[in-house]
């Protein structure tokens, strides 16, 4: 049954008349056209669908859209501000921390959530924090470097 759901999406107050039992991932992709958030495994094992909900990285394939009522949802499309890449995005570009790019939005959202919680992670903490996000191309070494670079820039910006 359709109902009105109100939440903040990428910084904007959003209302949608939708079936609240639908999966957040498919609502983002098909209702809002935000296709940067990817479907990878459908069971929360791979992290390709990671978005931030109230600054926490969450697997959007495991959540119905009704659960985000009143919350702040940020997808990969909402990370850049005023046309400027977020430090994590910028660091991924600088380090070539991607290949096919399919896991990349999830990686960036997860890394952003990690840095919001821990602005100065060690390499071990980055590995631990990124462990549940899968990449098949093997961009891992560069992603770790990119997260370090982003951490430095985010601190510098404060």
């Amino acid at each position, binding site marked *: 049954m359709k109902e009105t759901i109100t939440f903040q999406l990428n910084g904007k107050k959003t209302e949608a008349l939708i079936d609240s039992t639908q999966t957040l991932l498919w609502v983002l992709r098909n209702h809002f*056209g935000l296709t940067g958030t990817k479907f990878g495994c459908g069971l929360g094992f791979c992290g390709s669908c990671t978005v931030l909900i109230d600054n926490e990285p969450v697997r959007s394939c495991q959540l119905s859209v009704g659960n985000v009522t009143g919350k702040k949802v940020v997808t990969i499309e909402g990370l850049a501000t005023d046309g400027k890449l977020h430090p994590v995005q910028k660091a991924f570009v600088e380090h070539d921390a991607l290949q096919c*790019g399919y896991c990349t939005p999830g990686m960036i959202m997860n890394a952003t959530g990690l840095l919001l919680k821990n602005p100065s992670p060690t390499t071990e903490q980055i590995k631990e924090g990124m462990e549940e996000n899968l990449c098949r191309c093997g961009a891992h070494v560069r992603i770790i470097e990119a997260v370090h670079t982003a951490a430095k820039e985010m601190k510098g910006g404060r």
Partner: protein
Amino acid sequence: MKIKSNTRIVEPSSPKKQGLIPRRDFLKYLGGGVLIIFTPLEACKNMAEPVRATRSLPKDFNAFLHISEDGIVTCFTGKIEMGQGTITALAQMMADELDVSIENVKMVMGDTALCPWDEGTWGSLSVREFGPKMREAAAEARAVLIRMASEQLKVPLARLTVSNGIVTDKLDNSKAIGYAQLAKGKKIEKHLNEKPKVKEPSEFKIIGKPYNRTDSALKVTGEAKYAGDIKIPGMMFARIVRSPSYGASLISADTTEAEKIPGIQVVRDNDLVALLHLSRDKVDEAIVKVKAEFSQIEMSVTDKTVIDHYLKSATKGNIINSKGDIAAGLKLSDKIIDSEFYDGYVAHSPMEPHTAAAMIDGDIITVWVSAQTPFLTRDAIAEKLNMPAEKVRVIVPFVGGGFGGKADNPQAVEAARITKLSGKPVMLAYTREEEFFYDTLRPAGLNRVKSGIDKDGKISFWDFSVYCAGDRGSDTIYDVPHQKTTVFDQGENDPQVHPFAIGPWRAPGNSNNTHAREMQICLMAAKAGMDPMEFRIRNLKDEKMIAVLEAVADKFGYSPGKGPSGRGYGIACGTDVDTWVALMAEVKVDKNTGHIQVVRVSCAQDMGMCVNPQGTLLQIEGCITMGMGYALTEELQFEGTKMITQNFDTYEIPRFSWVPEINAVILDRMDQPPHGGGEPAIICMGGVIASAVFDATGATLYHMPITPARMLEALKKV
């Protein structure tokens, strides 16, 4: 490899006569409000005519490039971008040969209506095979443009020079004209009878220099489009009624319960029963309500019994290499080593499952697909739908990883069938379960190796057999007087070998064969009481192999030591796609848990001309990281034709905590033609890890992946 009845194998289809999509038709498509990827409208509008589709590369350079009125060079290629980085390397080659800046080169890839025919993106062929042809086309275009400039500027050819797409008189730089003004956005009509030479390496400005990926800005913002991101007005999500086991055929499907969900539409056509809905959630909900019956094929083989099964069902031996006499070699031997090596079935498991979006407009079907083979996919659709190929357009947007698995695209044919039957635009994105089930797997491997060493530490004979996994990489590589290589496959009266579809997996066959050969060498060196590096050098005549081994030893900081030295050092080398590669690794083994941590890996590669050292480095790192999977954890579980592995909870691919320190050296061979770069380093990962584990513990691991259980078992025998 011979496959019986219900097993699919990827094979290029036979050549057929091919027409073209009339220009007005595809322009209508482009203007139809449909999101089109990699198809700059301007470039198409300005093109004099669409590229004629054939089944060979066209001779006319206009098929490869187009120069717009604002000086943008659009490069057309049937190759696709799946992470391997040809989007950057090919742009470098085009820019260098034409003398334009790389920022002005736009890539249009994998669109059968716009790009020159291509066999597919596999075998590391993009740079080494397509690249040189594209460079020849660019060289001719450049020479023609300079001639046109000479006429317009009234300056002799010899006085003209080109930089950044501007042709200038060397004596009077006020006399200059750009490619943009010369080409005027049109097809360049002039051609040369005598084709100009491509640049010499000494003239390169862009080739050979490290460039970062040109697609990363799109990929970090979510703007990059993949097949699943295509949105067509009125598009419905499709799910297909799937069989519980491989090769089963549908008897009946009762969709009554599923149809109770409002908005569900059913499509039936013989073996195909699909549900459609505007909402992906709803179609997911509906598909599990279908009650279907199948007649199934029974096979008793499981992942645990596959080796015995191989021995029973692959009795046809074919000797592919023979030199000297094995019996004579046996007599020369001081020590003999007889081994069997095993590898499991592994999946490609790209992060993006096989996906296709399809629409029909009049009598033309357009399919956006996550494919490595746009043209073969187009032909497969045309054949299944009994349509002329010119009525099918396949567009490949960014592909979310392929590794060989997206050479085969059943989802594209299925989506095209559904769209034709329903008349609706359709999105068919495989679930992860479908992805594992329909993947064309890397076959399990069995290698038998018997070899001898004489008193001087020289290999006296080498008798190498490979079962069912392909002969790529089965070359002896070492200098052995008496040698034989035998490939065993399914004989005419043998039972079916593989319960599932098999196909090319990054460097097909080579990972298995290199693992077996290099681990055998490790064991032989230990038996001879020699350092494994010294043993290799003593038995090699191949100068390129010696060079990569010496380069990797230097990079790694290797010091000699007789194995097992306790240091956990491993070595493996081999060749793939004409590239010579050597790896060294250091591992740590937890003797209590059997867990193996790869600490560091070094790689040296002789790949001929390296177009983009940065892109090559990414590929090497990718090969090393991905290769840890087949070496340590990846092995599909199945019972007969039923696939047990369904998702990443039971199929463990490499993660962040596994990642070793990686460094690499690419040998400077700019005077050579380019060879492959996307696959070589992965072939050594099994051998380098197994030999490092031996060096660390003295335990011999014959079975990939080296799971903790296998590690603990092997430690008991030390």
